[in-house]
């Protein structure tokens, strides 16, 4: 594509969104940004976001909101404890806790993006230490370089990552009998996509990776198992080794496009791929900047496309977003992250255990009778005053009162605005108002219980499954 028309795309669809009277910066746009790039916004964050304006608000997302309640070294200690105890549950809970209470939600979201992209499962790795180390790698490179010629970047790090080496059978990739597992997946799922390589490229690349072993939990190059013969991968011939192959793959034009497409799908639109001109402009910019994820993500989040109707509330909420987002919006404190991780697992998303090397399918695949009932049951338990793992951790009536909403109609509007951008059919709004007014049998704090029920109903609405 000609440079001029790329510039035109960058000037229009990919240009930073600016508020206009017909398309103002408002709470809905702040909520959208926080849904996609963080894990949902609290009422105060919505207020602040409106004041900050689009530029300041995206700055805040890109930089994190600084010190969360928990210090970095405390998070590190928690992970170490979970790993030392061999507790996968606690390690899952630890990551949920980072998403929920950490100071930089975007980093956690991208760490998850990479976990989904380089999907590695404890199912086979069977080593929490390695899973945790890989997780820290994803965090370190969350907004780093996917590939950079001098130092290698994330793609090279992952290729030498012990969990990945175990996951894709590096130790059986021997000179006499190459194992194609990693060679195949780096081309098919990690960097190029089907159609951009041949079966012969895979076989030759596997030979280049021979001898890239993992011993005692570390990457180790075993020269005696490495095939030093001539190989041809993607048109390049020579005595290639694994590093050469990673470089050859990463520098294919298809590689930048592959990552751009996936980021676009994740942040902007999971239903339709980017237009060719948008893809080309983003991929070109990404390559020029040494595959800098910060540039790619920031450009995407600031863009007119991101704030367009094609993106707005057109994505289906993942279990992580559904559960963590609920607790953040309702300002739950002392909610057990381990219990939240267990709910996610029931809803089809078990951290550290993606269903296979292709990661989670997302979108409509999240939704079926069992998962919808699971979501509805979570909506019930998360605001319950008694019973279940979250009893009494969230008090919706108190939250509304804290923000000055006390009458029934104020309370209904407050929760609809906070949770679904105030956007439900008129009949549904009437139905919700009616249910808030109708009495509850069983005594207790009757009004508090009625507000809990209202919130349960809003969380169970079809609208709340949109992200």
């Amino acid at each position: 594509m000609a440079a001029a028309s790329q510039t035109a795309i960058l000037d229009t669809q990919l240009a930073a969104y600016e508020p206009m009277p017909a398309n103002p910066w408002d709470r809905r746009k702040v909520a959208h940004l926080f849904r996609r790039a963080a894990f949902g916004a609290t009422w105060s964050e919505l207020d602040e976001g409106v004041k900050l304006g689009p530029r300041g608000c995206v700055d805040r997302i890109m930089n994190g909101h600084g010190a969360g309640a928990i210090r970095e070294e405390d998070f590190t200690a928690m992970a170490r404890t979970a790993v030392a105890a061999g507790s996968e549950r606690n390690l899952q809970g630890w990551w949920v806790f980072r998403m929920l209470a950490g100071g930089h939600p975007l980093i956690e979201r991208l760490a998850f993006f990479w976990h989904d992209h380089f999907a590695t499962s404890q199912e086979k790795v069977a080593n929490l230490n390695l899973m945790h180390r890989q997780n820290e790698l994803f965090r370190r490179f969350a907004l780093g370089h996917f590939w950079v010629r001098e130092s290698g970047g994330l793609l090279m790090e992952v290729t030498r990552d012990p969990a990945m080496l175990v996951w894709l059978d590096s130790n059986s990739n021997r000179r006499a009998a190459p194992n194609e597992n990693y060679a195949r997946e780096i081309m098919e799922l990690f960097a190029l996509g089907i159609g951009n390589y041949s079966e012969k490229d895979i076989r030759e690349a596997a030979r280049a990776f021979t001898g890239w072993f993992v011993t005692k939990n570390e990457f180790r190059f075993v020269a005696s198992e490495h095939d030093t013969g001539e190989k041809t991968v993607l048109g390049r011939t020579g005595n290639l080794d694994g590093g050469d192959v990673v470089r050859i793959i990463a520098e294919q034009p298809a590689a930048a496009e592959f990552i751009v497409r996936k980021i676009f799908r994740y942040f902007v639109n999971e239903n339709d791929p980017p237009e060719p001109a948008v893809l080309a402009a983003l991929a070109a910019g990404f390559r020029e900047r040494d595959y800098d994820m910060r540039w790619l993500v920031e450009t995407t989040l600031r863009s007119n496309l991101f704030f367009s109707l094609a993106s707005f509330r057109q994505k289906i909420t993942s279990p992580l977003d559904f559960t963590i987002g609920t607790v953040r919006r309702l300002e739950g404190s002392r909610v057990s992250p381990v219990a939240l991780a267990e709910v996610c697992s029931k809803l089809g998303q078990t951290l550290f255990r993606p269903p296979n090397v292709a990661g989670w399918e997302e979108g409509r695949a999240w939704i079926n009778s069992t998962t919808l009932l699971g979501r509805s049951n979570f909506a019930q338990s998360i605001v319950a005053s008694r019973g279940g793992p979250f009893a009494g951790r969230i008090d919706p009536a108190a939250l509304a009162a804290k923000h000055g909403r006390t009458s029934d109609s104020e309370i209904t509007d407050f929760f609809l605005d906070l949770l679904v951008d105030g956007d439900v059919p008129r009949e549904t709004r009437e139905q919700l108002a009616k249910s808030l007014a109708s009495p509850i049998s069983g005594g207790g704090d009757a009004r508090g219980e009625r507000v809990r029920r209202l919130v349960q109903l809003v969380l169970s609405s079809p609208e709340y499954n949109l992200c």
Partner: protein
Amino acid sequence: MSTTRRSFLETSLKSSALVSLGLTVPEFLHRSARAAADAKSPADRVIVVIQLSGGNDSLNTVIPFGDDLYAKNRTALRVPTDQIKKIDDYCGLHPSLDGLAKLLEDGQLAVLQGIGYPNASRSHFRSMDIWHTASLAEKLPNDGWLGRAIGRPEMRREGIVPALHFGGKLPLALVGRSTEVPSLNSLADFKLQPGTAGREQLAAVAATERTDGTLQFLQRNTLEAYATSGRIEEMAKNYNTPINYPGTELARKLKLIAQLIDSGLGTRIYYASLDGFDTHANQLPAHANLLKELGDAVKAFMDDLGHHGHRDRVLAMTFSEFGRRVKENGSRGTDHGSGAAMFLAGGKIKPGQIGKHPSLADLDDGDLKFHTDFRSVYASVLEEWLGCPSREVLGGEFTRLKLLA
């Protein structure tokens, strides 16, 4: 929409909530044919896979009593001829398989002889993975044959749980690249937890038709989920069956499956396992108990399905990762072997033996020789029963067997 379907929705949603909104049963549900299940349509057919884990001793399951070599190889483990449930004058079923023998008499059981694959692995893990992935490749794929099948457009129906597993860890057979298959332990997983808001209020929030595509998808599925769970709860309370299921774990699972099939859930693949077949020592009593658990549970299951009018659209299939060696070992048990029989049960199968019992004289390194590749069975089940093209699912063409009557 059938009357059954309409009343199903109306009772399960307790439609007063809908009526109070001036709504009738939503139009889209008219198009759902789930409850009006019709055995003639492959789209309503169900398969129930029963995995016998550990390597079932096929030779003492379908017993070739008519061959002297049986008694010669099985001295401590020989089942007396007069106790065997004879299929013909050469072979018959283990006496504990009384339930299956009755199904055979009623024309509801097929015995598939000599099933296996070349260069059989005697590793539990490798061989089970081969059966699950339907692949013999050095490096096995990381998805399973049923997982791949449910990813096929022919098998996909939005919002329908495509497959359900009863038990803990999901078997590789059900791992696919599409949705995650839920593993259930009980119907509690389908229950709306009692809260202050009842099903009626929840349904009312989702009752208004949405217009946007994604939102409409969510709204319809939400309503369907409530209807399904309502139906299942009603069913759990009222499921009336004159059939006495035995008190075993497999029977419990199969009873749940029968209830779910009857509930109109629309799921087409169910999976349950029975463990303990790795009988290296003192095999006789343990194996007899396992076969009894299997036979009695499957018999009760088929009777129950028959009572509720679903027998003709259900096919139950057993398999094990391998058979065991023809010659018993020195500790009154058997070691890992190969070649085995499979059972198929259902109202529509072609009853009786399919294929010959493998010869006891012509062995492959002490093991029965297989004559039919297990993927031929899969291909036949996929194509003939489920209406799912098998070539891509199985990674090749396999000869199809005539399994249906």
